[in-house]
């Protein structure tokens, strides 16, 4: 009985271990034997430093395969990259052959719509992956595969230069432009301009103007402050409304006058017109007196003349 129990225990140990090994091997790569894959080729005319066999291939960020081979086309000075794409990510129905055909059709159509591949950094380690995305435009002409490098029936996905290459090119261009700038000349001109400016500022007339400007500003500030002391916001609002009303009345008066003057006979009403002019002159004089009074005693607008006397 004890022997039987020991056998069961050993069977569990060995059987469990073997099953665990098979499961681990399945998850860690052997499952790929049962996955339909299709090879897609591309070429790069830039350095592929950081891209290795096994590097990921992503379609808009989704892992869809890996790099399976990297070779150099010596004559063309370009790097040919072979990628294995898992077809289940794109077409998950039908037999392997059907999946391949559908994927090929799909890829050709998408290339026409601007699908291209590009190398991207996978992180801070310098490793790279290949990203499939619509970097091209539908109206762009589809680049042809380099002659003799890619088979007629093989799937070819054109590549675009990577962003870091663009950045590098931009930097080189910027440095070139910077090197074309004559800093010494600019420095000399700047120095001369500063000297002229210094001479100008030391001119007595300019100094006097600045001093007078300062005085004017000080006067303005004092005036503003006194006005602020006398009138608060509500009073100012009331005054503004009153002034608007007076202006409206004045405009009505002017319009009425205009109408009347058109209607009347100037020759016959010359005396009336004269008396009107006299009255208007008197009114303007009164307004001037009022304005002067207000200037000397602004508080009378609120308190009135009589109130102040009291």
């Amino acid at each position: 009985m004890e022997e039987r129990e020991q056998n069961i225990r050993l069977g569990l140990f060995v059987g469990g271990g073997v099953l665990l090994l098979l499961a681990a091997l399945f998850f860690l790569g052997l499952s790929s034997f049962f996955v339909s894959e299709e090879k897609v080729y591309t070429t790069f005319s830039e350095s592929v430093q950081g891209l290795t066999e096994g590097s990921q291939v992503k379609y808009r960020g989704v892992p869809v395969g890996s790099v399976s081979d990297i070779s150099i086309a010596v004559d063309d000075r370009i790097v040919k990259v072979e990628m294995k794409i898992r077809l289940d990510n794109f077409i998950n129905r039908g037999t392997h052959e059907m999946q391949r055909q559908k994927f090929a059709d799909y890829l050709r159509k998408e290339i026409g719509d601007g699908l291209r591949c590009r190398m991207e950094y996978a992180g801070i380690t310098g490793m790279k992956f290949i990203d499939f995305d619509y970097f091209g435009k539908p109206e762009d002409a589809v680049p042809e595969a380099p002659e003799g490098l890619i088979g007629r029936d093989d799937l070819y996905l054109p590549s675009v230069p990577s962003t870091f290459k663009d950045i590098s090119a931009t930097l080189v261009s910027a440095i070139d432009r910077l090197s074309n700038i004559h800093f010494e000349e600019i420095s000399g001109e700047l120095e001369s301009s500063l000297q002229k400016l210094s001479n100008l500022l030391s001119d007595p007339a300019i100094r006097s103007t600045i001093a007078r400007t300062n005085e004017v500003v000080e006067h303005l500030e004092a005036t503003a402050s006194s006005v602020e002391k006398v009138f608060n916001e509500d009073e100012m609002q009331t005054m503004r409304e009153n002034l608007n009303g007076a202006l409206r009345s004045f405009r009505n008066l002017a319009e009425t006058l205009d109408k009347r003057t058109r209607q009347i006979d100037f020759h016959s009403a010359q005396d009336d017109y004269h008396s009107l002019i006299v009255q208007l002159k008197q009114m303007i004089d009164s307004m001037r007196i009022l304005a002067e009074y207000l200037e000397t005693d602004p508080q009378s607008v609120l308190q009135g003349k009589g109130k102040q006397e009291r």
Partner: protein
Amino acid sequence: MKNSEIFLIRVRRRLLDAADKCVLPLEFLGAVAAALPSLFRKKGLRLREFRYYLALCGSKSLPIVLLISLLMGGVLGIQAALQLTKFGAEIFTADLVGFSVLKEFGPLMVAIILTGRAGSAFAAELGTMKVNEEISALETMGIRPVGYLVLPKLVAMLLAMPVLTVFGDVAGIFGGMAIGVSVLDIPFAAYWSRTIDVLDGITMLLGILKSVVFSLLITLAGCFYGFQSTSDAQGVGRSATQAVVASIFWVIVADALLTVLYSFIGY
């Protein structure tokens, strides 16, 4: 006899002793190799002993292997996390733990545990048999003690250790995963996905191949020092100690050599 002659005789004796000590392991290895064909004969392997050693080295060692591997994976995960979080690269904890456990720590920890459990036991057992003159009795009966006593242990270890390594690997990865998920807040699915993305079956199989080599070394060292034990109680203790020290030393040396060899094939 002159002093110089006495000195030369002593040097000669020391050299012969040293040569004997160097030859003894080779002699033992040769005897084991010569006994291997007997495994393929009918009743060549003593099943009862094989079962006993398989239980000793395998199923009875499983709990401690699982516990230590789980903790080792967790420790690796914490250490990786402490460094990788500085760069915002926590997800690479899965890479570090996975590769470390499968390639190094899984086989190595199991080997060290089995050295303590089985290697010393083999040496003590054979040493005691020598004290009791059971080995002499076997020789008197015309039974080759090396084949009779070593082969069941060797076969049991060759089977038990790779299986234990598989368990240890999985436990180590889950230990790292527990840290990644609980401490680093990496989603379980992301950690799992990253682990199966970066690891491959070949890496795991190469780790298990290491464990096969380690099992050979531990068994041979344990049995060799058991046979070399002197016929007294203290000799048994010494042989057990020597077996453990030699096993660990040769396991580490073999691990280093295998790592270099694997690097040649890109692993």
